[in-house]
């Protein structure tokens, strides 16, 4: 469904991605693993048009989206959940959700509240006053409001308490059961292993390993080379 073909990207003069080729098929959860600064976030930003793509191509369902502006990429069904969450802290939870709404049918505020009951209780609270875990829920919920065909999750488990990470894992697993396609960027292999069908390992802006998640769990050499610090 989503396909990156030899994508190169740069921040100004410093090149960050050197020909990244990855694919996420319909209904699949794919994990993009790698250390800090390996290029995970940049890959996701390149997909949504927030980083200038200097080479290669990105397509969604066969349609080339490489040069489209960010809002059109979003409207085509790519839902990006940024690493630093980027909650609108002055807006209430309800208003945050409203910004993400695109008038589709699958997800609405009531459905989102059903999924994340905690958010329903916090509907009138300012986004900035939420805890880290609540903010993470809100940022996922906000993106779901736009009825994405594919969800790009950027290190959702980062900086959260273990019990919160576990709850988040259950929620993502539930989304997977609904058939949502997910591209999950992670450093936390344990977290990704529970959710992902396949995995890519990125290192210094290049894909160094790819294959089924189960295989990665057996391939200690690859894990040691690219993942452990």
């Amino acid at each position, binding site marked *: 469904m989503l396909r990156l073909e030899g994508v190169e990207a740069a921040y100004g003069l410093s090149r960050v991605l050197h020909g990244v080729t990855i694919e996420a098929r319909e209904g699949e959860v794919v994990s993009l693993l790698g250390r800090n600064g390996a290029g995970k976030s940049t890959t996701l930003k390149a997909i*949504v048009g*927030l980083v200038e793509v200097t080479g290669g191509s990105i397509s969604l369902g066969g349609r080339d989206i490489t040069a489209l*502006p*960010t*809002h059109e990429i*979003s*409207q085509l069904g790519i839902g*990006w959940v*940024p690493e630093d969450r*980027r909650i*609108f*802290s*002055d*807006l209430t939870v309800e*208003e*945050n959700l*409203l*910004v*993400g*709404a*695109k008038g589709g049918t699958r997800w609405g505020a009531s459905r989102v509240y059903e999924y994340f009951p905690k958010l329903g209780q916090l509907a009138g609270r300012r986004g900035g006053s939420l805890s880290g875990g609540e903010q993470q829920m809100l940022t996922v919920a*906000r*993106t779901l409001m*736009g009825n994405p065909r594919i969800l790009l999750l950027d290190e959702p488990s980062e900086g959260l308490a273990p019990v919160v990470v576990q709850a988040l894992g259950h929620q993502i697993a539930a989304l997977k059961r609904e058939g949502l396609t997910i591209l999950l960027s992670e450093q936390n292999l344990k977290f990704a292993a529970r959710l992902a069908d396949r995995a890519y390992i990125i290192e210094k802006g290049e894909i160094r390993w790819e294959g089924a998640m189960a295989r990665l769990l057996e391939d200690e050499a690859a894990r040691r080379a690219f993942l452990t610090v």
Partner: protein
Amino acid sequence: MSLLFVQLLSGLANAMFLFLIASGLSLIFGVTRIVNFAHGSFYMLAAYFTYSLSAMLPLGPVAFYAAALVAAFLVAGLGGLVEVLLLRRVYRAPELYQLLLTFALVLVVADAVRFVWGADNKTGPAAPGLAGSVPIAGQLFPSYDLAVIVFGPLVALGLWLVFHRTRWGILIRAATQDREMVAALGVDQRRLFTGVFVLGSFLAGLGGALQVPRLALTTVMDTTVIVEAFVVVVIGGMGSVWGALLASLVIGVLNAYGVLVLPKASIVLMFIVMAVVLIIRPWGLLGRPEVLLRAAGGAVAGERRAPWHPAWLAAVGLVLLALPLLLPTFWVWMAIEIFAFALFAASLHLLMGTGGMVSFGHAAYFGLGAYGAALLLQLAGWPMPLAFLAGPVVAAAAAAVFGYFSVRLTSIYFAMLTLAFAQIVFAVVHQWDEVTGGDNGVLSVWPPPWLKSPVRYYYWALVFAGTGVVLLRLVAASPFGLALRAVRDHARRAEAVGINIRALQWTAFVVAGFFAGLAGAIFVFLKGSVFPVYTEAPMSVQPLVMVLLGGVGAPSGPLIGAAAYKLLDTVITRYTDYWQVGLGGILIALVLAFPRGIAGVLDWRRS
């Protein structure tokens, strides 16, 4: 007691106007990050539209009100048009070019207004039904002002409803905080930006239209109001509409009482408030810190490294040496003026080009150099060469004091604090009649007889301006200059490397102030007089335009820019009274077509 109460009411009425204008300005900045100088021009246009329309519309008593509304809508439409046709092209350009573009619009609109309505003041109609006064606490108070006091909060309430009860308003609040995220959620920014410009311009238009019964219309009401509106926006916090409301009330009421206590200090009062607020709370009362890593002014594309070819330099030097022997006197004067401004612009270039610190108040140091030299010559009786050299020292001393506070701030807040200090300097030289002569200025400040001939003063100016420019270049190319650029490009990293950012920028500020003062000293002995306008905002804008005209990224930019600006000014003024349209048009074309300035174009042709 009753006087105090009536003053309070009149302060509130003024506050409501400030709020109308400043809220639109703040709104536009918050979402688009454009500092819209043309906001005051929209305000002025709406006032003139109302003036003409209320005479034309055959609606009897409601003609004024209908005219005011139509004018506000016209201006709103115009704002939308400007956004779509011009500003949309420069959102990705460095902030400076956006400033230059909106400044060019100010020039164009100002001349258009002079062309259509003439330069003389106009008095608009009284507001039908509200023309009289009502007795309040034993004093007569204009009914119209009372109506304004009621109307202002209604507008605020309307805005609140839009921002909290409509999806569009919620999107605007979200975009003020993080417009990239809003785009990533599928919202088309372009439509949002256009909408914000229309709403902001409408508010400016409403403010201008409703001023008609209270104020005489003048062709300078645009610049007067934009400065006040900026002060309010900065005090309140850029992008915060409620901050603008709070700051409007503070400034409006403070001014009303300030006039009673310190009538002479009334002009500076709001600048003092702004300076204090910025020093204590750098992001304004209700603003929030910017999370930008890069200094806003520092986004300079395509910087070149001193490619002054020796042969080129020698040729230029020979031409400059021969020039006064070949040119008629008028052009010799002209050349000296260009030298002074080239040095002035080069000193600003050290701040904004190399240092990424855009100052809106650089004229303060130019003016202090001029005043320092003039007063030491006239009042202290110093010989001219000594007074001439002391001028820049005076300027550097002031720069040391003002710079100490200014370098604590970044981007637009730095710009506004420098402006505030310049306005304070202006107020002091303007009001301190006994020493500075106030409006009359200091006259007969001439060089001694041995230097008085144009040709001799030409060489004097050439030596000092030339030395100044070369020294500034050396400073920029030195390790000190490199460290300045490092701070400009990434303040945090530079700090992590061990650079003392504030000390570095403070030093640069003082150096820039010194050379601006030298430029002022050269200028004052050319003109033989100095006036308060030398320290005022328009004087600060000139070197800014010169640097941008020449190209921020180029070392020779300020020199080329100063020559081009002064020559254009002189040539266009010869053929028409409406030189601002010409200059504005050229600036717009330049920003849209050649965002790297004249030097950038030359560079591009060469390569």
